[in-house]
C-alpha cells in the first residue's frame, strides 16, 4: 500500500497528462489553428449551381487556400445559391473584379471555390459581392449535352 500522498500525486499527474493530451490533440489534430482563428473578412457570391460544395470547403487563389466557405443558402430573390466566404485578412488587396468558380480537386475530389484575380485597382472589402461567377460543372448535365449533340449529328 502506497502512502496517501504518493497516490494523490499520481492522480494529479494523471489529470495533468489528460489536460496535456487535450491541448495537444485540440491544437495539432483539429482545425483550431486554421484560417478560422485569424482575422478574416467576408465576401459573398451568387452561383446558379454550386454542385456538391459544402460548408468549410476551401477558398483558394492560384492553388493557395486563403479562406473557407462560411455558409451556403438559397437567395430568395434571384433563386441562386449565395455562398458566403471568410477570407484571411492578410489577403486584403484582391481586385474588386475577381471572379469565383466552383471547381473540383481531382476527378473524385471535394469541391472548392477558386478565385481568379481581375485587374481593377480598388480591392474587395468586407461585405462585397463577387459579381463574376462560374457554376459547378454537373456531370449529368455534361453527359446530357453530349448525348444531345451526338443525336443531332446523327440526324
Amino acid at each position, binding site marked *: 500500500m502506497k502512502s*496517501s500522498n504518493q*497516490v*494523490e500525486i*499520481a*492522480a*494529479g*499527474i*494523471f*489529470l495533468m*497528462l*489528460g489536460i496535456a*493530451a*487535450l491541448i*495537444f*490533440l*485540440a491544437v*495539432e*489534430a*483539429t*482545425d*483550431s*489553428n*486554421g484560417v478560422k482563428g485569424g482575422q478574416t473578412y467576408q465576401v459573398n457570391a451568387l452561383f446558379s449551381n454550386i454542385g456538391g460544395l459544402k460548408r*468549410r470547403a*476551401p477558398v483558394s487563389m492560384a492553388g493557395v487556400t486563403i479562406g473557407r466557405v462560411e455558409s451556403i443558402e438559397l437567395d430568395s430573390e434571384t433563386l441562386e445559391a449565395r455562398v458566403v466566404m471568410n477570407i484571411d485578412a492578410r489577403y486584403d488587396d484582391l481586385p474588386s473584379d475577381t471572379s469565383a468558380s466552383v471547381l473540383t480537386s481531382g476527378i473524385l475530389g471535394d469541391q472548392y471555390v477558386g478565385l481568379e484575380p481581375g485587374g481593377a485597382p480598388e480591392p474587395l472589402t468586407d461585405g462585397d459581392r463577387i459579381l463574376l461567377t462560374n457554376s459547378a460543372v454537373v456531370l449529368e448535365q455534361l453527359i446530357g449535352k453530349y448525348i444531345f449533340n451526338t443525336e443531332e449529328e446523327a440526324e
Partner: protein
Amino acid sequence: MNGQAQQQWLVQAVRRLGNASVFLVQALAGMKCTFFHVGETLRQVYYIGVRSLIIIMMSGFFVGLVMTLQTYDTLSRFGAGDSVSTVLGLVLFKELGPVLTAILFAGRAGTAVAAEIGLMRATEQIDALDLMGIDALERIVQPRLLAGIIAVPVLTLVFNFMALLGGVTFAIGMMGVDPITFWGNLQNSVGLWEDFGAGMLKAVAFGVVASWLAVYFGWTAHPTSEGVAKATTHTVIATSISVLLLDFVLSALMM
C-alpha cells in the same frame, strides 16, 4: 404459464432499471465537497484511472497502428494513401477512442469497483457503516462514481493520443507519408467542436454509464461469493451493451 413468466421477467427488468436510476440520483444528490470527499475521489482516480493507463496506452497504440495499416493499404489502391490521416482522425476521435476506452475501462476498472463494493456487502462492511450512522452511499459509492466520470474522458484523451502516435509511427515512419501532408489533412478535416468535441462529449457520457453500472452492480450484489462473481460479469456485459447502444443514439443525434 410461459407468458406469465415472460411478463414477470419484463416487470423485473423495468424494476431494476428504475432501481438503478434512483440509485444514481441518490448518489449524485448527496454530493458533498468536503476535504475528505475531494481526497477520497482523488484516491479513487488513482486506483481506477492511473492504474488503467497501461492497458489504455498499449491498446491505443496498437489500435492506431493496425487501423493505419489497414486504411493505408485500402486507400493506396485508389491512389489516396495521403488521406490516411483524415480517416484515422475522424474514426478515432468520433468513435473508436470513446467506445474502446469505455469498454476497456469496464473490463479493467469497472469489474474491480463492482467486486470491491460487492465484497464490502458480502463481508457486511456496509452494514457496519450503516450501524455507525455513516452514509455508505456517500462514503463508498460517490467517490468511485465521480472518479469514473473524471477518469474515462482523461483515458479517452490518452487513448486518442497514443493511437495517433501509432498512426504516425506507421504512416510517416514506415510508409513514408509526408509529415506535412499527414498533419495538414488531419487539421483540415477534423473539426474542433463538431468532431473532436462530439467525441469528448461521448466520452463523458460513457464515463457516467460505465462507473454508474459498476457501482450499481457492486452495491446490489448478493452477499455471497457467487453474487460478487455475477456482479462483475454483469458489469462488463451491461456496460459493453449500453455503451454501444448509447454510441449509436449519440452519433445519430449529433450528425
